C-alpha cells in the first residue's frame, strides 16, 4: 500500500488503480480481492468500516476508489459513504445483495457513484475505473475554471495547517506531521500543479467552511443557492461549482443528522437537553482553559487560549469547531506544553468543527434542536473520525510520541484519558457541581444523557460515571462495532476509571471557574468527558479509540448528544461556552479536557472522551 502514495499509474491507467474494498463478509472480501487483482488493480481489503476510514485518513491520496458493502456491523455503509465523500472526496461504489430500488436510491442520494448487486461479476468491476476518471476530469475542470493559481496558493497556505480536506490540520502541526509530511508533499504538489492528473481539491478549511455556513445562514437555508453563497462568501478563488458540491454534501449531512435526530430525540430528549447545555458550558469552559488559540478565528468560541473558557461564541458553529479543537487540545497539552499540539488538533478539530458548526448553524435551535445536534454529530462523526486520526497524532506528540500514529491514539487516549478523567472527577468534587454524579447514575440508562450528567464526579464518582455512560459502554462494547443508539447501560468498566486514574489528579482539576461559569451541567460534561476517558481506559480501549467504531457507535449516541450539544452551542451563547464544539462528539471528549484544563487535565483528548462528552452534552 505504501506504493499507493506514488502518483497513480497514469501511463497504464486503469491498471494499478488503488482500490479499497470494505466488506464484513470475509468470503466476499477474498472473492473481490481476487477479481480486482485480475483487473490489474491494486487492492486493499478491509473488514470493518472504521478500519477503512482509518486507512483512508492515514493515507490521504492512498486510494483512488472505495468499494463498500452496504450492510456492515460496525457502521452503516451509507454512513461510511458520507464520510468518505466529505473527508476524502473519493468515488465510492456500494454493493449489496439487496437490490431494492429504495436501497439503490438511498445509495445514490448519499453520493455513491454506483451500486452493484451481489453476486458481482468480474466485468462490473472492470469498469469501476471510469468513476475515478470522471471525477478527475471534473476536478480539473473545477480547478481550471477559477483563478486556480491564486486559489492554489491560498489552499497551499492553508494546507500548511490544514490537511487536504477538512481535518488533520493539527496533524500537520504536531508530530503527526511525520505522517502527514508525505501527504503534504503530495498536497503541495497537487496544488501547485493544477494541470496534473491529481485532482486539486478545494480545501474546505475551517475558515472557509465557517464562511460558507455563515453565508448559508444569512441567506436562509431554504433559499440558499450556490451563487448566493458564493457571492456572500466573497472568496475570489472559489468557484460556484465548489460551493455547489459542498452545499450538496452539507445538505446530505444535515438531512442525515435530522433523521438521526428525530430518532434520537425519541430517546429521551429532555435529558439530553439538560445535559447538553450544561455540558457544553462545561466543555466550553474547559476549552477555554485549554488555550487553544487557533480556533478562535474559526470558531470564535474556541478559545483555547488560556483557561478562560469561552465566553466567546456560543454559537454553535464555533462550538463545534471548538469542541473539536478542544479535544485535541487536551491531548496535546499534557505532553507538550500543549500549545503547539493543541493548535493542531484544534485546527483539525476546528476544521471539523467548522464543518459541524456549519451544520449546527443552520440549526441554531439548541434545545430541542435535535436534528441540529444530529447534524453536528454527523459532522462530528466525520470529524471525529478525522479527529481520531488527528487525535492520535496529536496525542502522540503530546503524550509521548510513543503513541503510534494510527489509531493507537484511541488507545492512548483511553489510557491517558483514563487518568485524567479520574482526576477530573476528583477535581470535580471540588467545584460546586452538584449532583453531576448523580447524573451519571441516572444517565446510565439514558443513552446519552447519562454521560453528560456526570459532571462533577469526584473520585468516587468515577465509578458512578461509568455507569452513566451508557454510551461508553456502548463504545467499549462495541469496540469496533457500531454502537447502536440504544446505549445499553452496560457501561463497561470504562468508568471504573477510578482505577485507572491514579495519577492524574492534576488534570482532573476541573476548573472551578469553569464549573462556576458553566454550571454544574458542564461539570457533568466534564465528568462525562472524564468518564469517558476513564471508560476508555478501563474499557480497554475498546471504547472509542480502539476502533473507529466506537465513534461510529458513538455517533448514534452522539447524535443525540450533539443535538443537545447543539443546544449547548446555543446555550453557550448564554454562557459563552463554546458548546458548539461540544456538539462535536470529538469535542465532547475534548471538552472534558478543556474543562479540565482549568484543572489541568492533561489527559489526552481522547476522542472517546469526546464522544462521551457529546453524550453528556446532548443530555442537556
Amino acid at each position, binding site marked *: 500500500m505504501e506504493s499507493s502514495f506514488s502518483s497513480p499509474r497514469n501511463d497504464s491507467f486503469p491498471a494499478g488503480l488503488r482500490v479499497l474494498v470494505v466488506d*464484513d*463478509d470475509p*468470503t466476499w472480501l*477474498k472473492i473481490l480481492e481476487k477479481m480486482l487483482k485480475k483487473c490489474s488493480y491494486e487492492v486493499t481489503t478491509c473488514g470493518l468500516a472504521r478500519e477503512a476510514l482509518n486507512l483512508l485518513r492515514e493515507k490521504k491520496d492512498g486510494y483512488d476508489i472505495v468499494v463498500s458493502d452496504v450492510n456492515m456491523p460496525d457502521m452503516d455503509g451509507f454512513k461510511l459513504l458520507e464520510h468518505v465523500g466529505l473527508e476524502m472526496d473519493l468515488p465510492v461504489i456500494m454493493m449489496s445483495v*439487496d437490490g431494492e430500488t429504495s436501497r439503490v436510491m438511498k445509495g445514490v442520494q448519499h453520493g455513491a457513484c454506483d451500486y452493484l448487486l*451481489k*453476486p458481482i461479476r468480474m466485468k462490473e468491476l472492470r469498469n469501476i475505473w471510469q468513476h475515478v476518471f470522471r471525477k478527475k476530469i471534473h476536478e480539473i475542470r473545477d480547478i481550471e475554471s477559477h483563478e486556480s493559481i491564486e486559489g492554489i496558493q491560498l489552499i497551499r497556505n492553508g494546507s500548511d495547517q490544514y490537511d487536504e480536506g477538512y481535518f488533520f490540520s493539527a496533524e500537520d502541526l504536531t508530530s503527526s506531521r511525520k505522517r502527514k509530511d508525505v501527504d503534504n508533499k503530495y498536497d503541495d504538489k497537487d496544488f501547485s500543479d493544477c494541470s496534473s492528473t491529481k485532482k486539486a481539491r478545494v480545501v474546505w478549511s475551517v475558515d472557509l467552511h465557517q464562511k460558507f455556513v455563515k453565508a448559508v445562514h444569512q441567506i436562509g437555508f431554504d433559499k440558499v443557492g450556490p451563487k448566493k453563497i458564493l457571492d456572500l462568501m466573497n472568496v475570489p478563488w472559489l468557484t460556484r461549482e465548489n460551493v455547489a458540491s459542498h452545499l450538496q454534501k452539507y445538505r446530505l449531512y444535515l438531512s442525515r443528522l435530522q433523521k438521526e435526530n428525530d430518532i434520537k430525540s425519541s430517546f429521551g430528549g429532555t435529558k439530553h437537553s439538560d445535559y447538553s447545555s450544561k455540558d457544553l458550558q462545561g466543555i466550553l469552559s474547559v476549552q477555554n482553559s485549554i488555550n487553544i488559540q487557533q480556533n478562535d478565528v474559526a470558531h470564535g468560541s474556541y478559545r483555547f487560549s488560556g483557561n478562560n473558557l469561552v465566553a466567546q461564541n456560543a454559537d454553535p458553529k464555533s462550538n463545534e469547531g471548538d469542541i473539536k479543537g478542544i479535544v485535541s487540545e487536551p491531548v496535546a497539552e499534557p505532553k507538550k506544553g500543549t500549545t503547539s499540539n493543541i493548535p493542531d488538533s484544534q485546527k483539525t478539530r476546528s476544521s471539523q468543527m467548522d464543518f459541524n458548526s456549519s451544520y449546527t448553524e443552520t440549526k441554531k435551535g439548541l434545545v430541542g434542536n435535535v436534528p441540529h445536534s444530529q447534524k453536528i454529530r454527523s459532522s462530528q462523526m466525520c470529524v471525529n473520525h478525522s479527529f481520531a486520526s488527528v487525535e492520535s497524532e496529536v496525542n502522540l506528540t503530546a503524550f509521548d510520541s510513543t503513541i503510534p500514529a494510527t489509531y493507537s491514539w484511541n488507545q492512548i487516549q483511553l489510557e491517558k484519558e483514563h487518568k485524567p478523567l479520574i482526576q477530573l472527577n476528583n477535581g470535580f468534587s471540588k467545584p460546586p457541581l452538584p449532583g453531576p454524579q448523580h447524573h451519571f447514575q441516572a444517565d446510565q440508562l439514558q443513552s446519552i444523557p447519562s454521560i453528560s450528567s456526570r459532571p462533577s464526579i469526584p473520585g468516587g464518582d468515577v465509578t458512578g460515571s461509568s455507569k452513566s455512560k451508557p454510551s461508553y459502554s456502548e463504545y467499549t462494547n462495541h469496540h469496533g462495532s457500531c454502537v447502536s443508539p440504544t446505549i445499553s447501560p452496560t457501561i463497561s468498566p470504562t468508568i471504573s476509571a477510578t482505577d485507572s486514574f491514579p495519577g492524574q489528579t492534576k488534570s482532573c482539576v476541573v476548573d472551578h471557574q469553569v464549573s462556576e461559569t458553566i454550571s454544574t451541567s458542564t461539570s457533568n460534561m466534564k465528568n462525562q468527558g472524564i468518564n469517558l476517558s476513564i471508560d476508555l481506559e478501563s474499557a480497554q480501549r475498546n471504547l472509542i479509540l480502539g476502533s473507529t467504531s466506537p465513534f461510529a457507535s458513538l455517533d448514534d449516541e452522539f447524535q443525540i448528544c450533539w443535538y443537545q450539544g447543539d443546544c449547548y452551542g446555543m446555550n453557550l451563547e448564554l454562557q459563552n461556552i463554546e458548546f458548539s464544539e461540544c456538539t462535536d462528539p470529538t469535542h465532547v471528549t475534548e471538552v472534558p479536557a478543556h474543562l479540565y484544563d482549568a484543572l489541568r487535565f492533561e489527559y489526552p483528548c481522547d476522542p472517546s472522551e469526546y464522544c462521551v462528552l457529546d453524550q453528556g452534552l446532548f443530555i442537556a
Partner: protein
Amino acid sequence: MDKNQSRRQVRLMRQSLFDQGFLDEQFIQLEELQDDANPNFVEEIATSYYRDSSRSLQTIELALEKTPRDFNKLDGYMHQFKGSSSSIGAKKVKAECQQFREYCKAGNGEGCMRTFQALKKEHATLKKRLEAYFQMARQAGPIETACRPK
C-alpha cells in the same frame, strides 16, 4: 481409478450440481478466477464460506429460540447470510434465505422455523456435495479443476 474416468466423474459431478440447482453462475465466476496464482481458489472460497456460514447459522438458531422473536434482527441476520451464500453461488440455500425473509417480514414465526430447518438441510447437503466434488477433482488432477466449463 483411471485418470480419464475420474475426470469424467468430476465433470459429471460438477454438471449435476448445476443441473440440480445447487449452484448458480457465481460458481462459474469463481472457477474463472482460479489460476496459477490461486490453483485451489474455488475450494478455498467454499471452505471460507462454510466456516463463516456455520457460525452464522448458530447465531440465527439462537435468535430463533428467543421469545418473543425479533423479526427485524432475524431478517438482518438472514440478509447477511444470503449475501454470504451468494458468494459461492449456493442457489438452493439462497432460495431458502429469501423464503425465510419473507416469513420474517410477515412475522410468521412458524414459517421461519420451518424454513430455517429446510435451509440448514440445504446448507448441509451442498456442503457434502462440494466436499465430494473437490476431493474427486483433486484426485483427478489439476486439469479437471482448471477446466472452464461451458
